[in-house]
């Protein structure tokens, strides 16, 4: 179970990205040489969040790109997520790789808000 929190929706997304990266590789050994931009839509916050996690998994496992820095903007009117990633392609000699995340599951998934803090709980298949 991955549990993340953030003081805003954007920070919740960013902290989630670091949690997901931490499962797959050692972020300290990655440099931010290359910039990538992802754009996608979701039907409401939950869908946007799930698409966000799924896109991060694909960036690493399909595109072999490790991110070090991340910026997220949520365009509520269009239900659009714009993600800027800075990182570099996987180099097995340089990077410390842990494990593959294969999928985000629906099991015990939750998004919550208590006061000003937002929380996410989810399970990934490794």
């Amino acid at each position, binding site marked *: 179970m991955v549990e993340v929190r953030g003081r805003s929706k954007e920070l919740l997304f960013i902290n989630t990205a670091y949690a997901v990266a931490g499962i*797959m590789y050692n972020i300290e050994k990655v440099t931010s040489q290359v910039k990538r931009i992802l754009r996608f839509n979701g039907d409401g916050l939950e869908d946007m969040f799930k698409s966000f996690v799924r896109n991060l998994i694909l960036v690493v496992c*399909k595109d072999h790109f490790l991110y070090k820095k991340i910026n997220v903007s949520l365009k509520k009117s269009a239900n659009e997520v714009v993600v800027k990633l800075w990182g570099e392609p996987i180099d097995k000699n340089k990077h410390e790789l842990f494990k593959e995340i*294969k999928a985000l599951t629906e099991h015990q998934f939750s998004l919550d808000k208590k006061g000003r803090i937002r929380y996410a709980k989810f399970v990934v298949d490794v």
Partner: protein
Amino acid sequence: MDRVEIVKVSDCIWEIPKRGKMRVPGRVFASDELIKQIENEQALQQVINVAHLPGIVNWSLAMPDIHWGYGFPIGGVAAFDVEEGVISPGGVGYDINCGVRLARTNLFIADVREKLDSLIHHLYNNIPAGVGSKSVIKKLSKGELSDLVQKGVKWAIERGFGSEEDKFSIESEGQLSQIDVSYISETAFERGREQIGTLGSGNHFLEIDVVDKIYDKDLAGYFKLQQDTIAVLIHSGSRGFGHQICEDYIKILSKHIHEFNIEIPDKQLICAPFKSNVGQQYFHSMNCAANFAFVNRQILMHLAKQSFLQTLGLSENELGMELIYDVCHNMAKVEEHIIDREKRNLVVHRKGATRAFPKNHPLLPKKYQNVGQPVIIPGDMGRYSFLCIGLEKALEITFGSTCHGAGRVASRSQMIKQMKNVDLKKDLLARGVVVMAQSRNSIAEEMPQAYKDVSKVVDVMENIGVSKKVVRLKPIGVIKG
């Protein structure tokens, strides 16, 4: 967590009585010792949840290696009527046709002992594994990948990965015919293009084993296995291709479920009537992923063979590597079964369970008609695995199914904490096992302490007459992602 009511029916057979909206009772196969562990898990609630699904026949079953999974428990078997029942991606699992294959060789322990380190290094360098691994085959085009999933293992054999004979040692001859690539997303294709012939990570492995105990000399002889024979055991599946298909269809089916008026107690039990358009789309896509997995394991075995030949300087004849069998662990298959003395077509979901057909079953290859289906049950990397065969009773009480492994008792995160101060490679070496893996954690998560003792699991299935032990295999070398 509420305690689940469970009643002993007979030795090693337990029943969860039908209550509430359950359509059938649950059945759990376990010894008195194993049931105590199982009772403390959420997995029994998952057995109950599965019993709520439409068209389920007789029981929602749990093998003794049952543990918590997403929606369906791992170690769960459920059969649904083809006309009235459902198909569920959660009942198959994310890693569609995750499975194992076992190959024997002409070698004995004495032939490899001195070169074991080099052999494991060679295998580790030759077999892509873990995050970011790429196939030894050039990136396939979408057309090439479509061709691969249509032909199944024939695709690999045509390209020199293995021999014609191999297909007769693979469940469904390594090629399921009810497929349609047009139902598969571009993302799934993208994920699959570079992953054919890669081991993956998590609990996937390639292991060098030695036969250390023989239970049935005649059957062992039939499989050309003797005391101290070296064998290779491979555990892998359909990689990102299968995962993406599962994920896509959980999403697609979630949008359609209201059309079918199906109530599900857990989102991960999302399903559709088998005969509905969307149910058929998933079934045909799932079969594509299954064919991908058959090809994947075929290529992995070829790569392993190359490592043996090169490291040990042997000819193919001297090595004599031959596939004994390749079985699926995560699948839904349409099979004919006798229910209340009538032949019925059922969609049998096995999630973390192995088909175990007895001798003379029409779906068995000719060479196993007189002995029964080989059933390969991997344990953990420190103890042992088993080669068994399916028996007649399996058709009566488990829809022709048996266990698939040891079953976890500790989560991955628990194991990482528990193994924090342990020299893992040294610990395994003391057990006579050389291991190489991409990261320390991938060893820690899979240490023997994470699993039940597989011999206790296999014994339950033998006690109830479902499958029978032939040989025990002890790992001596392991590579992991």
